């Protein structure tokens, strides 16, 4: 074994760290530096889902384009059709006595 004292070795390590610009941490204390060093993951996480462009968005942004939302038109047509057959949504209750919730409780 070499006859170099541990103190000298420690001094050597310190000098080495100074020369190569690394952190001198002889006791291997956890400094938490890895939390500062790591890249931020948020920006890439935000890009996971592709941006959804819907027809209402286009209509709102560019009213001059006159884009037709055929699905929405069909839906409104169906609703009117259902109403004409008496199958529409029930009327909203005006007061508490009309509401179905109170009736069920009795």
């Amino acid at each position, binding site marked *: 074994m070499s006859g170099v004292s541990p103190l000298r070795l420690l001094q050597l390590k310190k000098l080495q760290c100074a020369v190569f610009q690394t952190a001198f941490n002889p006791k291997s*204390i*956890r*400094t*938490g*530096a890895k*939390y*500062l060093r*790591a890249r*931020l*993951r*948020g*920006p890439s*996480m*935000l890009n*996971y*889902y*592709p941006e*959804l462009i819907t027809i209402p968005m286009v209509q709102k942004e560019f009213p001059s384009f006159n884009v037709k939302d055929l*699905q929405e038109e069909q839906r409104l047509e169906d609703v009117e059709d259902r109403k004409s057959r008496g199958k529409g949504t029930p009327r909203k209750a005006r007061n508490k006595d009309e509401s179905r919730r109170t009736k069920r409780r009795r």
Partner: protein
Amino acid sequence: MPKPFPNIRVMRDIKAREGFAGAEIARRAYLYVARNQALPAQVRYQAQLQLNTFDRYTRPTSVVNRCTETGRGRGVISEFGLCRYQFRLKARAGELPGVKKASW
């Protein structure tokens, strides 16, 4: 087929992603203090308590990679971000470059 409206689980996941991105720097700072053994124990404990007060939608683990087409949470092939069925449909339609059905 029209693109389906993102379901509530996808909306929640987007919320989690936005929350995480917004709080990431503050979170990192508290993590640094809490994990730093060179700092006094009381400070580290306080930082840990602060970390625990963060909203649940600011945690990276609340983010789940869901299917970008249907929002399905299971069976998602991460390389394409699609669930297994959508992957099959798209691969057969030739919409995924470089993917073809194996046969030997």
